[in-house]
């Protein structure tokens, strides 16, 4: 609640800039059209037309909102023209990929912290793996998985996993190594087993890092799912909407799919934040 006024202010400023930018970016088209039609055009007319084009360079905020409204609220959610339906398709792949990525990331981090060979060999290659442009190999992954008989949700989820495990590894390695020398020494004096040290010291101290990484991983995972949708033949999902929008120059549709993606991501990240607050509160850290 305390944040509402600042957020609204910032949003208001952005919307204002946005409208201005829409005029600036779309004016050329309006002028060209008018010239072709031998039509004189006044300033107010110009401004209004830049805000109501069919295929603007930059759609005005109200156009995007209208499109969002029409494709979410006014459409049956099972319809292929409903953004809710497409969002759900993407979300399910995102969640599956996120779960797999988190599991893989945590497992790798535990390995890196506890197994010396892994500590020394895995990290550079994990980093290198992230410099590979996923968009380039996503189609190949999909093709290979398809050839292996995997299709539908799983290939997309695999790409999500590929993108989301990285922040988790990095964050968790840092988090699992966060305990101070003295805290680790204490555990030694009690001759705690590695499992006990992990559960009672390393894991609790890694919680803030884990949650920070999970938020990044969730966003990455959504991007992964969308990327994964592109080469599955643009069948359904927000990625397919983006793609279809871009073939047909439907900027309004692109922007609304884009916003839907951001809304989904924000909601998921918000959810993680909620879990984080509850967990940290239970742990007495918030």
């Amino acid at each position: 609640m305390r944040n509402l006024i600042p957020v609204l202010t910032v949003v208001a400023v952005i919307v204002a800039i946005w409208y201005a930018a829409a005029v600036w970016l779309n004016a050329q088209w309006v002028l060209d059209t008018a010239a072709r039609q031998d039509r004189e055009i006044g300033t107010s007319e110009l401004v209004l037309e830049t805000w109501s084009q069919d295929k603007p360079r930059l759609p005005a905020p109200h156009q995007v909102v209208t499109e969002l409204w029409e494709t979410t609220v006014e459409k049956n959610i099972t319809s292929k023209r409903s953004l809710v339906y497409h969002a759900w398709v993407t979300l399910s792949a995102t969640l599956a990929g996120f779960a797999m990525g988190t599991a893989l990331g945590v497992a790798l981090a535990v390995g890196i912290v506890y197994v010396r060979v892994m500590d020394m060999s895995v990290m550079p290659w994990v980093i290198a793996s992230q410099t590979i442009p996923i968009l380039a190999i996503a189609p190949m992954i999909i093709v290979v998985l398809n050839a292996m008989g995997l299709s539908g949700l799983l290939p997309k989820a695999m790409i999500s996993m590929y993108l989301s495990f990285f922040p988790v590894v990095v964050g968790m390695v840092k988090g699992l190594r966060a305990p101070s020398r003295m805290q680790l020494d204490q555990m030694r004096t009690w001759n705690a087993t590695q499992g006990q040290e992990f559960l009672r010291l390393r894991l609790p101290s890694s919680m803030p890092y884990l949650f920070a990484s999970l938020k990044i991983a969730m966003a990455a995972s959504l991007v992964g799912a969308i990327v994964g949708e592109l080469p599955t033949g643009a069948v359904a999902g927000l990625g397919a909407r983006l793609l279809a929008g871009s073939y047909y120059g439907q900027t309004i549709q692109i922007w609304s799919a884009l916003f839907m993606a951001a809304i989904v991501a924000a909601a998921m990240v918000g959810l993680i934040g909620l879990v984080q607050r509850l967990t940290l509160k239970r742990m007495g850290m918030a």
Partner: protein
Amino acid sequence: ADELSLQLKWVTQAQFAGYYVAADKGFYEEEDLDVTIKPGGPDIAPVQVLLGGGADVMVDWLPSALAARENGAPIVNIAQPFKSSGLMLTCLKEHGIESPEDFPGHTLGTWFFGNELPLYSWMSKLGYATDGSEGGVTIQKINFNVDPLLQKQVECATTMTYNEYWQVIDAGLTPEDLVVFKYEDEGISTLEDGLYTTEANLEDPEMVDKLTRFVRASMKGWKYAEENPDEAAEIVLENDATGAQTEVHQKRMMGEIAKLTSGSNGALDPADFERTVDVLLSAGADPVITENPGEAAWTHAITDEALQ
């Protein structure tokens, strides 16, 4: 029924109406086939899918299919439902381009991914350099839409008669605002949407039999679509999972597609093949294919059987 999967080279649209019609009208069923149609997209190389085992047949253009062959993909054309080429170069009149002589100094946009090959051939035939140097043209890669043309990032752009051209018109330009060069008219047309499969498949009699029935049903679908364009467009729309296609656009597209398929009974015309190869081989300094693959790249075995 026997299962068979088809990989398209692009998203669901009237360009592939024949296959959707055949599926919808039960032509495949009549041949005891259960066909899965997999839509494509900008990042799908149908050849990869085919060789990866994700599909049994694919739709592709001959230039890119031949390029893939040279790079080690053993693929063969088994049918050619498209007779003529729908490729063209569309320019805005305001830039003062009226004929190919006016190209030098201008920026021409084209899709890549194999689609740039005909343009490069054309330019080399005209004797223009393509690196933006004096007296040559600048080639610019553009995405599969017409925004760069509308926003004047390029002066001419590759369009298809059945799709992008109409997007330009829909954007509010009139045919009078445009100058259009059809590849077909410039004598550099190359074969478009054909059906391809792997050499391995062709050695398997059972597969050959399936493919024969598939081609027969598909051609029936195409001819039905040609005669009933509006119904075909409706069928395409029903099969579009993205929900992004519009009725007006698809009906218009179907009309244009019908013009391209009308001259073909499904069998590849060897003369068309040779012309395409010639165009490709003449593509200047860096030709995409270096030698004529000859009859290894196509076969009439399927169509002969299917079209009796």
